[in-house]
């Protein structure tokens, strides 16, 4: 990744000659490239501007060692800053530090992958960490949503909360937690209906769900193909319920996934997991280093 990034910059940065430090003009040229690459990768515009300004500051006047080209020098600064902005090296695990049953609340826009990801997390916790997991669907909106989660629970070999027609999402949430306590579950995953960032009524509802369950994790599930609207999604869910972690789904597609950077920048919450397929085992830890290269189109 490094070579192609520095190649891209070498094309726009003039020969430094004998100067030895990066000039403002050199950096400005390179930053135009970065800005474009990031916008093409769907990083949200305010996040791009902020990032570019920071990198500009770090770059201007930076020493260029004799062994590297100016292009390489800028590439390293950009790359490091991007990994940093994505959360630094390494992965952040799910936080299950709470008295069992530990509630995990899944939220996000319609069709982002909440229900599937609920099933994936259940499978992972059950098999890797030997947790006793209960899946509960609070989705009374989408046709057959509760049945979908029930079928995924069967596939994952974990329990699901029996479906009772006519209950409100808040009532189901309470019943899920009671069942979790009574039957000795370690983790209760609460899958919710998709909702738009502008839907006040549904945002209030998810806030109520949070208030009655006190989730250890509130995971915002986001499609990796998301465009500039990532800003609104991140803001509104974070304001409504406080996002503790982000899951990027459909990383198996060929979208460059700039929404990951927007999510991190706006919620401040780490990206914890990525979905890379429809099957229940297609869930991975998030590695900022890998996604950085993808965002820059390398």
């Amino acid at each position, binding site marked *: 990744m490094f070579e192609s990034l520095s190649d891209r910059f070498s094309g726009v940065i003039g020969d430094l000659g004998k100067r030895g430090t990066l000039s403002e003009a050199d950096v400005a040229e390179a930053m135009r490239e970065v800005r474009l690459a990031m916008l093409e990768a769907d990083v949200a515009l305010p996040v791009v501007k902020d990032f570019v300004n920071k990198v500009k500051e770090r770059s201007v006047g930076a020493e260029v060692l004799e062994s590297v080209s100016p292009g390489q020098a800028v590439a390293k600064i950009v790359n490091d800053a991007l990994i940093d902005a994505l959360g630094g090296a390494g992965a952040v695990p799910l936080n299950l530090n709470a008295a069992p049953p530990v509630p995990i609340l899944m939220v996000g826009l319609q069709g982002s992958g909440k229900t599937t990801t609920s099933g994936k997390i259940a499978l992972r916790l059950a098999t890797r960490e030997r947790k006793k997991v209960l899946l509960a669907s609070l989705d009374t909106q989408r046709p057959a949503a509760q049945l979908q989660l029930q079928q995924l629970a069967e596939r994952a070999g974990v329990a699901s909360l029996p479906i009772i027609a006519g209950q409100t999402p808040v009532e189901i949430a309470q019943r899920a937690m009671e069942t979790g306590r009574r039957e000795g579950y370690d983790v209760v995953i609460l899958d919710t209906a998709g909702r738009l960032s502008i839907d006040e009524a549904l945002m209030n509802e998810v806030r109520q769900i949070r208030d009655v369950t006190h989730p250890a994790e509130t995971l915002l599930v986001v*499609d990796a193909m*998301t465009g500039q609207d990532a800003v609104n*999604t991140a803001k509104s869910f974070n304001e409504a319920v406080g996002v503790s972690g982000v899951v990027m789904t459909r990383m*198996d597609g060929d979208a460059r996934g*700039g929404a990951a950077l927007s999510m991190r920048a706006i919620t401040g919450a780490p990206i914890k997991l990525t979905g890379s397929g429809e099957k229940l085992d297609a869930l991975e830890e998030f590695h900022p280093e890998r996604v950085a290269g993808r965002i820059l189109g390398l």
Partner: protein
Amino acid sequence: FTKRKLDEAALEDLEDHLIAADLGPEVAERVIESFRSTRFGTEVTDEEIRTALADEIARVLEPVAIPFEPSPELKPHVVLMVGVNGSGKTTTIGKMGRYFSEQGKKVIMVAGDTFRAAAVEQLQVWGERTNVPVIAGKPGADAAGLAFEALRKGKAEGADLLLIDTAGRLHNKGALMEELAKIIRVMKKFDETAPHSVLLVLDATTGQNAVEQVRVFRELVNVTGLIVTKLDGSARGGIVVALAEEFKLPIHAVGVGEKAEDLRPFSAQEFARGLVGKASLETSPPEEGETPSAAP
């Protein structure tokens, strides 16, 4: 109204606004360039700017704003609904089912997603809601076989419109795309002309990747038109402008909610106005709650 000169700074603000609406940096720049050539330096109000810019964009969209009309000669007109995961295919089938059956057409919906958990049951609920019959196979059944069977049945029963749902698939997955091509091949064994429409359903929240989606789906399964969903949210769907320029595929309809009646014909003017929205010379971030209210 306060007038202000349309200068470089103002144009840059407008360009930012278009980028934030997902037009993409290249298209946004091009739109602003041609806008500049006609208006630069003139004294204008915000309102005038918005209208003029919307007109500029609407000109690109006008030629592709073509409503979907099932052909009365075809018995049935066969529609294959395709797209990436979660874009809104099944919901859109439910909405179209309602609309055309209320127009007095005999509609049949086909639960061709035999893969995803409860996908069949989801469409069956839509069938009950809209009073439209649903043909379904067993979970895990061969989708091509089901489509073939449904086509035979639809012909025998003299249906007007056959709406076939398919499993969501990412365009970069060769095997899954081949499966879709197979559904089409198998249908053609029964009726050379089927499917008569292949509709690609796009989520308005999607960014630049939508271009790749359309390119690949069009190449592999001959997409005939687009439907854009989830425009009731804060996403403005600006990528549609790039799609209109590059592919010129008809945009038939937009989804503006989760209910059966939440489908509207695509209107170039309304859509363009929604894109430009609150665009203002004082750069304001895209306001939440902005919805291009597509006129029926």
